[in-house]
């Protein structure tokens, strides 16, 4: 299946009942698939008048405790940032998909990872976080969509799945796991009518007294700390004896893996560390993966964004360099291999 379609199918199987979106390349197949399937399978598909409206529809549906999602691509996600901030401030769970493309501005429609900063640090105004999941195969897209809904409800946070034009358009075989789409018990906070049985629920991000707002934000950060402790995830490949560890996420990690294999064939001890959760960033796992490393190379489809988190995690104890292509250009394994060779020469 195509990555975008597999994502959509996984969402339905995970119990997503509502989709609100706006057309944009390269996430198109996702919304087209849902427009066909949702009405047949008891769900709601609605094409909104704008990304701004779509994310606010997500807020409304999510506020009722319904599993809900939206998808877009980079410029559209910028438009959604207002609503995402409100959703985070109102503790409403939902899934937001970004099938990244080139930027800034209208940029290009080619694959990119230029929204790492936006996703992990700047998705709207205020102190808040989203859980950011970064799959690197169509199968993992499916698995992480299911996990995204569960995590969102467990911690009452919005979750973003960061895909890109490569993963979205890629065709791979995929198996759908058995899913029990029970969902969490949202009856303690959701706006579904009091039935005259309880005090009214208010889904809200406004706290006009500074001390009240601080308390709300602090409580949210206590949850974030639990998420950092329990949900950080990364994958190591040939890192145990590696002199050079590449860090890469999403589709780029597959290119980097080819380069690592080529380097190993030349006798260079290279390894790959792939963060699966971009927030929380898997710091401990990265430290484990770089125990033997003399150099770290961050490979990204941008001008160097995740490298900041890699450096922070390593606390400047290992030199970290960068290789990336941007604007929608995809780096080749040989380009990455050349960087590995240079680093290998440097550490000898």
């Amino acid at each position: 299946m195509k990555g975008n379609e597999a994502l959509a199918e996984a969402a339905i199987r995970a119990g997503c009942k509502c989709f609100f979106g706006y057309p944009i390349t390269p996430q198109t197949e996702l919304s087209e698939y849902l427009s066909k399937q949702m009405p047949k399978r008891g769900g709601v598909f609605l094409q909104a008048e704008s990304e701004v409206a779509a994310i606010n529809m997500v807020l409304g549906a999510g506020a009722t405790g319904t599993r809900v999602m939206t998808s877009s691509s980079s410029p559209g996600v910028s438009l959604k940032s207002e609503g995402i901030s409100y959703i985070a401030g109102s503790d409403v769970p939902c899934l937001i998909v970004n099938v990244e493309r080139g930027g800034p501005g209208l940029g290009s429609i080619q694959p990119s990872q230029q929204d790492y900063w936006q996703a992990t640090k700047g998705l709207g105004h205020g102190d808040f976080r989203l859980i950011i999941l970064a799959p690197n195969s169509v199968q993992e897209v499916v698995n992480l969509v299911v996990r995204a809904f569960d995590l969102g409800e467990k911690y009452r946070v919005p979750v973003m799945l960061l895909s890109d034009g490569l993963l979205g358009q890629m065709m791979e075989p995929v198996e759908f796991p058995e899913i029990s789409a029970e969902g969490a018990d949202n009856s303690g906070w959701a706006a579904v009518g009091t039935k005259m049985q309880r005090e009214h629920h208010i889904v809200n991000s406004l706290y006009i007294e500074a001390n009240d707002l601080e308390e709300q934000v602090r409580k949210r950060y206590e949850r974030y700390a639990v998420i950092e402790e329990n949900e950080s995830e990364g994958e190591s490949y040939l890192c145990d004896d590696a002199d050079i560890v590449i860090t890469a996420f999403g589709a780029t990690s597959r290119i980097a893996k080819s380069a690592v294999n080529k380097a190993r064939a030349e006798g260079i001890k290279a390894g790959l560390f792939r963060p699966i959760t971009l927030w929380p960033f898997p710091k401990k796992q990265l430290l484990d993966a770089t125990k033997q490393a003399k150099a770290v190379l961050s490979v990204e489809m941008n001008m160097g964004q995740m490298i900041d988190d890699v450096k922070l995690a390593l606390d400047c104890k290992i030199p970290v360099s960068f290789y990336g292509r941007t604007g929608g250009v995809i780096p080749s394994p040989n380009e990455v291999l050349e960087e590995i060779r240079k680093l290998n020469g440097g550490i000898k």
Partner: protein
Amino acid sequence: MAVKFQRPHALCDVRLHYCAGCTHGIIHRLVAEVIDEMGIEGDTVGVCPVGCSVFAYNYFGCDMIEAPHGRAPAVATGVKRARPDLNVFTYQGDGDLAAIGTAETVHAATRGENIAVIFVNNGTYGMTGGQMAPTTLPGQVTTTSPYGRDPRKAGYPIHVCEMLSTLDGTALAVRTAVDTVPHIRETKKMIRKAFENQQKGNGFSIVEVLSTCPSNWGLTPKESIKRLQEECIPYYPLGVYKDVNMEEANADKLAMGGAAK
């Protein structure tokens, strides 16, 4: 003696934060009275705007959601689509509904969303201190039109009901006022109609209520009512701009297809 008139149940027993004589309180009460009389408090979700009525979530006894500025119709759409069994209303001011939220308003209307929109038009941004609103009258002095609104530069006021009544998804578009008891009674009747339309699945209903803002108009509450009558109502005529059975009114378009096969 029996109690003949008191605060409706759906309006919480708290002091409203509005300025003395602000007619928001009357409109809140009318919405709550309709909710009481229809017996739907337990199955209603309200969506608040940003503006003076931002704290309305503290005042209505039903479940409430606070929307970003202007986005209440989109939030209400999300609620209603996810849970069609709920009664959903938005409560919005003129800056919220007719400036920053114009797109959300127009498209919720054209989709015929089954929601009730209570639109409070007092021609000013009250919460931020009396700036020019999309419905500020020509010549009206505000803090951002200090020489009076000049339509040549600042544009013309928007007639919301007239505009929305051109859309096929709009079932009810009506403009009322709360300057007198008869007008207050009429407003309540129309709010009830908006909620009933929703229960019938009759599409988008908007009740525009001409309202006052004594603090930012720089008038006493009584003088504000007088201005409402002498300046605002003549500019924004009261009345029913549209009141249809949406399915019947659009039978030709609906016959063109699109039903799920």
